[in-house]
């Protein structure tokens, strides 16, 4: 039996994403991969597996059917979700038996929801990764009628949840100096930390536009800067003085000056800021940024230890009597096969 997830309906920004495709910058191909890398790691932890490719859902999910018995995890920006009509908890792992229908509606907080599968999604690898990079013409958006291959699942528990900190409503972002920070007047560098920015409705996998609550930013005199490497997180100033934070599918080089760079640990917060959310920046030293990176990686490693059983309130369980309430001392579900 082929393991697959059947797509009956998909929102306009549903793609397969993984950790991206590093190593092609010299050829003009940016790394790409999930906008919220933390959500991928959370999905992997909930399913008790290493990081795999998952479904990234921008704004709205879709209607999916299990082509075989599957385990799923729902992470990232919370979306209204149900299995065969019964609501299911976000930031949790569930079983999706063969034939069950998973309905994922619009995002309720944040911007991108993630559906991870036990065994991971396994569409064809392109240049060493399974993620779609639509800006580069690699892969394509997921659409109704697709049957997405799912890898072998070594099994593991479901009905587990993970408490996550809020990164879905904007907030504070730490930045380091970029290549071109010193091309900007000192006044603007100071003002970056004093300005509140609102996430514009213009945002996609290439970049997120922010609108400052005060004066615009920019380098005087139409300074022409030679095209240089772009790093995800770069805060690029375009003609109208409103910055873009460049994201997973940014171009590899660019000529617009960049005022600062958001540190990787805070990029999930940029990705998940919904339109209208307020964001603020503060410069940190490289030492502080590296300490934050170290803490971020430690938190990723710690995710599996933070998984908790998903206990349903018996009052919410309509069919309580049909459940097997007591089973053997160990039913095997909690063994790592």
């Amino acid at each position, binding site marked *: 039996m082929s393991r697959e997830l059947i797509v009956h309906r998909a929102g306009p920004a549903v793609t397969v994403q993984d950790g991206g495709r590093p190593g092609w910058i010299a*050829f003009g*191909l940016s790394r790409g991969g999930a906008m919220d890398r933390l959500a991928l790691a959370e999905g992997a932890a909930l399913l008790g597996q290493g990081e795999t490719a998952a479904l990234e859902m921008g704004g709205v999910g879709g209607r999916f059917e299990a082509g075989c018995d599957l385990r799923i995890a729902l992470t990232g920006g919370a979306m209204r979700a149900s299995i065969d009509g019964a609501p299911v908890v976000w930031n949790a792992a569930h079983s999706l038996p063969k034939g069950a229908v998973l309905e994922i509606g619009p995002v309720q907080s944040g911007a991108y929801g993630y559906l991870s599968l036990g065994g991971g999604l396994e569409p064809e690898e392109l240049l060493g990764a399974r993620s779609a990079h639509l800006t580069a013409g690699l892969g394509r958006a997921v659409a109704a009628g697709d049957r997405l291959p799912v890898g072998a699942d070594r099994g593991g528990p479901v009905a587990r949840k993970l408490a996550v900190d809020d990164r879905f409503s904007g907030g504070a972002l730490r930045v380091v100096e970029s*290549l071109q920070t*010193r091309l900007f007047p000192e006044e603007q560098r100071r003002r970056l930390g004093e300005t509140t920015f609102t996430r514009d409705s213009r945002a996609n996998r290439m970049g997120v536009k922010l609108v400052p609550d005060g004066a615009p930013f920019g380098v005087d005199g139409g300074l022409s800067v030679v095209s240089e490497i772009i790093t995800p997180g770069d805060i690029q100033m375009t003609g109208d003085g409103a910055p873009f934070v460049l994201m997973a599918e940014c171009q*590899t*080089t660019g000529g617009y000056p960049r005022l600062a760079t958001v540190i990787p640990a805070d990029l999930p917060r940029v990705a998940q800021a919904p339109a209208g959310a307020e964001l603020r920046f503060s410069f940190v030293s490289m030492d502080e940024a*590296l300490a934050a990176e170290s803490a971020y990686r430690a938190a990723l490693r710690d995710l599996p230890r933070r998984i908790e059983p998903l206990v349903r309130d018996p009052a919410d369980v309509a069919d309580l009597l049909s459940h097997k309430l007591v089973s053997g001392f160990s039913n095997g579900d909690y063994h790592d096969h």
Partner: protein
Amino acid sequence: MTDDLALMASYPLLRTAGIDGMLVSFGDKLSEPANRAALAFRAALESDPPEGVEEISSSLVSAYLRFDPLALSHAALESKLRGLMASRDWLQADLPHGRRLHRIPTVYGGTLAPQLAEAAAEAGMSAADAVTSLSTARVRVTALGFAPGQPYLGELPETWNIPRQQGLTPRVPKGALVLAIRQFVIFSVTAPTGWRHVGQTAAPLFRMGAERPFLLAPGDEVEFPQVSEEVFARMQNDPEGGASWEDLP
């Protein structure tokens, strides 16, 4: 005002890019020596990559390294890079080995490349002289970017220092050879552009599954010999689009 530091920067210049990148730049604008220096510096790094470095690339005037800053400290990498920067005059360096010379057959002018005459007029020469000049020029891939596999190629003779056009051409086809400010770009996808469409090529710049998926690499050299529309029509059935290459010494 801007920092004196930035305006008076001396090259080579080392800067960080994010928390996990360092950039060594050899100029503040594109020039042949700065591009050659970037290519040579990149090749030197690739021949002996420091432990902890994850990616090395070059762009117009810079070499870039991405590294794991928790495995390789900024101080250690900076020290190594400064040592390499000071080890020689990189603007005098030879181009690295392992480069290719590509010949990409091109139709100039006509309906396939409608702005040749306009570009020739900007450069102050006849259309025939323009074709001779462009079809015999040998240019270098100075960088790939904007779209995957899409090359910037330079520099053309000084006479081709023509500006971008005022308006945008809404759509040039894949394979369009466009020109401005002494450079060519070949479009790898259909796109709008302010550069003038002087030639049309059929060589795929990206082929999925190929051993070398991108046809061109930074530092490669390219010529665009002229072919007729009849020959071009036949080349479209060729998986290489009529292109050929040889190793450069």
